[in-house]
């Protein structure tokens, strides 16, 4: 069985984001970018399936700007076998929306024939939480979202899902789309020899046009704003004063 893992290049989770002055989005010029953390978990899970003898090949695919090849190299260094880069934008600020990504992934799935797709549950840049579900609908495959445990057994997969207030265990038919939650595993980091070996692993380059998918955005971003800064506090002299102030602002 082949496992396909889509990985997205996003702003590094450690970077303090800055909103562009025109409010059109977050400034990504000369900002540290990394693999979406949920995708790292997805890659790790796929590699573990291979190590357990349940998968033969792990293919990673990224859709976006050319620089996403670095994200793919990171996945290859972790242990993926080969990579496909689908160039769909020139400008780092152009986000490819979930539907377009899902359409391209559908085409990749049809070309590669994997038995399982493991994606991150959401990307930390736009928090859409939609690509896996859309891909499942387009392919007509089963889906197991927010997986915190995955056990593939022949024609079925048992998935533990993190749902509000607890865990839900479901059994689904393969082929399937699984989306990874935070606690699915702890992704490895590459050893130096594997970082260097990744340079030589195959990386195919395609474009969105090769798959006949129109990536023009369908959503319009109206405004992006920074979270409100914490405003300065005041000192109160006594409990009475505190209570009075709280009443004044309607907090009690």
């Amino acid at each position: 069985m082949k496992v396909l893992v889509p990985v997205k290049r996003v702003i590094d989770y450690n970077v303090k984001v800055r909103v562009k002055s025109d409010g059109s989005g977050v400034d990504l010029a000369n900002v540290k970018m990394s693999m979406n953390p949920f995708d790292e978990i997805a890659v790790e899970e796929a590699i573990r399936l291979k190590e357990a003898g349940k998968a033969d090949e792990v293919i990673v695919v990224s859709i976006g700007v050319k620089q996403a090849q670095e994200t793919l190299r990171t996945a290859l260094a972790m242990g993926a076998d080969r990579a496909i880069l689908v160039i769909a934008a020139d400008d780092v600020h152009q986000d490819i929306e979930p539907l377009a990504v899902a359409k391209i992934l559908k085409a990749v799935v049809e070309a590669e024939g994997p038995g399982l797709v493991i994606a991150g549950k959401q990307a930390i840049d736009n928090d859409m939480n939609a690509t896996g579900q859309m891909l499942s609908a387009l392919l007509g495959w089963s889906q197991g979202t927010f997986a915190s445990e995955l056990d593939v057994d022949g024609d079925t997969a048992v998935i533990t899902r993190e749902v509000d207030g607890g865990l839900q265990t479901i059994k689904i038919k393969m082929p399937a789309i699984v989306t990874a939650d935070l606690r699915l595993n702890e992704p490895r980091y590459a050893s130096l020899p594997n970082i260097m070996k990744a340079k030589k692993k195959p990386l195919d380059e395609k474009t969105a046009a090769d798959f006949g998918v129109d990536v023009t955005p369908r959503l319009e971003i109206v405004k992006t704003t920074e979270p409100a800064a914490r405003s300065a506090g005041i000192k109160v002299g006594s409990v009475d004063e505190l209570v009075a102030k709280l009443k004044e602002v309607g907090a009690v």
Partner: protein
Amino acid sequence: MLLTHEHNELRRTVTRWVEDEINPHIDEWEAAGIFPAHEVFKSLGDRGLLGVHKPEKFGGMGLDFSFAAVMAEALAAIKAGGVPMAIGAQTDMCTPALAQHGSDALREEFLRPAIAGEYVGCIGVSEPGGGSDVAALKTTARKDGDDYVINGTKLWITNGTQADFCCLLANTGDGPIHQNKSLIIVPMKTKGVEVTKKITKIGMNSSDTAQIFFDDVRVPQRNRIGEENKGFIYQMQQFQYERLWCALNAAAVFQRAIDITVDYTKERKAFGRSLSDNQWIGFKLAEMQTEVEALNALNWKGVEMVVAGQDATKVATMAKLMAGKLSRTLPDGCLQFWGGMGYSDESEISRLYRDARLTAIGGGADEVMLQILTKYMGIFGSNH
């Protein structure tokens, strides 16, 4: 120098390793005055991180020095200076000469396990009689049959209580003091090697520092690195790596000092505003940031020269000097803005302040760097 994706990945891997394997234990190791070198080095060796710029023939990665430089910087994420120093002693202080000039048999016996993280190494240059005047050291290795018989004392030896071997600088001849020394690999379990107790220090507490006595210690002459009586020259070449390593690591430590101080002064309120809202504090931090940037420029000029195969001694010496000088002002300047917290063991800055101070002494004191530089400038006094 333009760093590649692989450089960035190396940095990421080292940082993650530090966060997962080292920082959770660092307070314990600081309190114990020692860290488990064999365990830590094995963990590094398994990830290919102890032989970054060592020959592939002996298990190294065969990469150029720029990768080792990135690693030296990335190790500054460790929240104590002792552990990175011990790692640097292994990778860039006690093994460069062995890697470059050692025989195949010697490299097979000592370099391969050092790269794999099975052996811990140490570098034995300094002595009780003096560390600055390397040429005047007193330890002797006298020939006897196929062996050397070694007598003398080495002091301040990093990793000394845990090491499997020592790369020892000793007098092997009666010629002029720059032409009478050799580097010899001494297995530490050899009869006559005696390690006295760990030295307690003001900083670098997680690193063990030893005094080592050599009393009629017999090692085969094939343990000598390269040619006889070329040891002083080899050691000077080896110092180039050591000093660049120190400067690179120090620059990244200084950056951490600034970063944590920026965060602290933004959070901390006094006189009704953040400390960082005081122009004095902002300006001091900006000045320190500029100093780090200048040190980085010097460091990476040195790295580029090494990568290009040029003699980087002068620039490496300048970088080490600059790092040493900043180690006496920059952590102090940061600590000041932490107020009472900076003086307490509870803050990250206080340990950094104590640890960093060594930069101006270890690997050659600032004055020794200045002395080397005066030679380059043709103004070194004839009475020396």
